[in-house]
């Protein structure tokens, strides 16, 4: 190695070491980029794989009631282990009232946290909505469009209400609406985003009272079951 008078490596003497370091750093950087690309292509969701393996081995039973949220009260953002909620009213909802929660915008969104079994089982799911529409006669028949992860899955119709009785009505006495959600939609992601679309109007707008709050429909409970297991919904729905 070339050295200076003081014994230190000269500039030209240091050059090979510098380039060796640069090459090493480049190699390390490329290794990280290649690793990341490899992980993106080869990595598999370990919880899904674990659930599938366990189910195939019969180690875990598939519960009949896959999902029944315990809180549809105030709007609760997803992911609260402290409140034990597995559903949230994501947007478009008003505060809770006697029946449940009321949609206040045309699009109201509920996010359901899907357990891995809901995505690995392969069966379609049945969404059970315990819901009623705000349907004063002036609004006529009411229509509720339901989309799961952006895919339309149902359109419910609510007849116009009788002005002398309840303002919130459903199409049957049980208030329960069963909606099929194809497995392919549920398998897409760990959250099932339900977009419920219905026009809103306030009693004040309609000249029916002083309440200025826009109203669409009300939801009390929501459940998600495997197809064929949703009979339990009838027992637990109300």
């Amino acid at each position, binding site marked *: 190695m070339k050295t200076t008078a003081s014994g230190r490596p000269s500039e030209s003497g240091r050059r090979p070491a*510098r380039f060796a370091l640069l090459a090493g750093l480049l190699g390390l950087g490329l290794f990280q980029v290649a690793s990341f690309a490899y992980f993106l292509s080869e990595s598999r969701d370990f919880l899904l794989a674990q659930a599938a393996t366990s189910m195939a081995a019969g180690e875990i039973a598939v519960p009949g009631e896959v999902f029944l949220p315990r809180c549809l009260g105030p709007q609760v*953002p997803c992911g609260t282990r402290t409140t034990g909620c597995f559903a949230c009213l994501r947007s478009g909802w008003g505060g809770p009232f006697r029946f449940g929660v009321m949609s206040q915008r045309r699009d109201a969104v509920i996010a359901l946290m899907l357990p891995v079994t809901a995505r690995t089982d392969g069966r379609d799911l049945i969404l059970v909505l315990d819901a009623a529409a705000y349907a004063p006669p002036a609004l006529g028949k009411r229509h509720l469009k339901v989309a799961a992860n952006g895919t339309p899955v149902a359109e419910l119709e609510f007849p116009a209400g009788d002005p002398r009785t309840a303002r919130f009505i459903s199409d049957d006495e049980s208030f329960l609406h069963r909606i099929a959600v194809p497995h392919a939609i549920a398998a897409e992601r760990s959250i099932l985003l339900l977009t419920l679309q219905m026009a809103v109007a306030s009693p004040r707008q309609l000249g029916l009272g002083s309440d200025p709050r826009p109203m669409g429909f009300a939801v009390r409970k929501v459940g998600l079951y495997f197809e064929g297991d949703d009979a339990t919904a009838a027992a637990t729905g109300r």
Partner: protein
Amino acid sequence: MAAVTRYESSVIPADFMTNPTPAVRESVAPRQFHSTVPVVAVFIVSRLLLVGVGASTLVWNGGHFDSFGELVSLLARYDAYWYLGIVEHGYSAIESPDQLGASNFAFFPVFPLAVVATKAVLGISGAAAGVLVANLAFLAALFLVFRYAMCLGLSPATATLAIVLLAAAPQSFVFSAVYSESLFVLLLAAAMLALRQKWSWTSGVAAALLSAVRPNGFMFLFFAITHLFCSDRWYDALAGWRRPERFIPIVMAPLGLFAFWWFSYLSTGDAFASMTTNREGWYKTLDWPWSNIILALTHPEHHSRYFMAASLVFFGFSLLLLKYRCVEEFCFCLASFLLFWSSATIGISLVRFSITLWPIYIGLARALETRPGMAAGVTGGFASWNAYLMTQWALGAGNIAL
């Protein structure tokens, strides 16, 4: 030069913190040995006060606090059980029966590894080793933060104020608990200090370890890259062949994260097992930060609003770093906050995450150094907030103390 060493804002050049004059460097260098007294004092006083508050809370509510075991029990709660599970049984892909989708892959490995080593060497319980590691790391972190503040040209008094704020910060009791926060602060301080002092390999090793301590560890990259461009003209900064050692910390910083990804991939088939289990078990999915901020601030439950508002307050404090031209430190804080807000569908734990961004206290201390009354007020406010959270922690009222 005497005017400069008076540390009055009116005579300090605008780039004083990032580019102190050689005379200032010399003037502070001989005093560095004095850091032992303030650092140790701050550590002992703050820890004693916090443990005192926790113990009093327990006793006041009919509990006991009369043994070392009680102390360890006080400091090993909530997420500590996840770390201790890793220490005792290693990583496991089996989800928790109490929390579907949750597994200990959500917790990064360097802290539990340090606890395992301490436990093996000293022959003590995992929880006691965890408390020891966390506290030693915090003591060392206080030294390095003090040194860092001095390196930026701050006076010893201001550097002391910075570590007082760090030790008194709300929820800073986690620096003594079986949590990875204190180790994070230590390694972050080591990586930043080494980089500023041009010890590239030391900075690179500390940064690599840092990225395997907590998920935002790799955000050190933003500090390192900004530092590269701030200390050189951009075309010199990009000329890697001239001084390749400047790139060592940048290239090495993600190594810890990649090591954890490789471990996760080889043991579960899922390199991103940490993210997977965070999504399934803790419902943390990425969203736009502003969406999460609005969602948390309009949330009907007060603790969600509290966490998000507190993180915004800390972000506000971090803007002081820009005022004092600590651009690198600010970029690190900004990147960390954006990561926190993007993954916090509910703002839980945001205070704990925010207090680890210790450059904030340097900016704050710099702003308060000539305002002793306000400095006392802020410190007192932090300490009171911290004491209240300590009572909640001791009582197991986890919503607000998580």
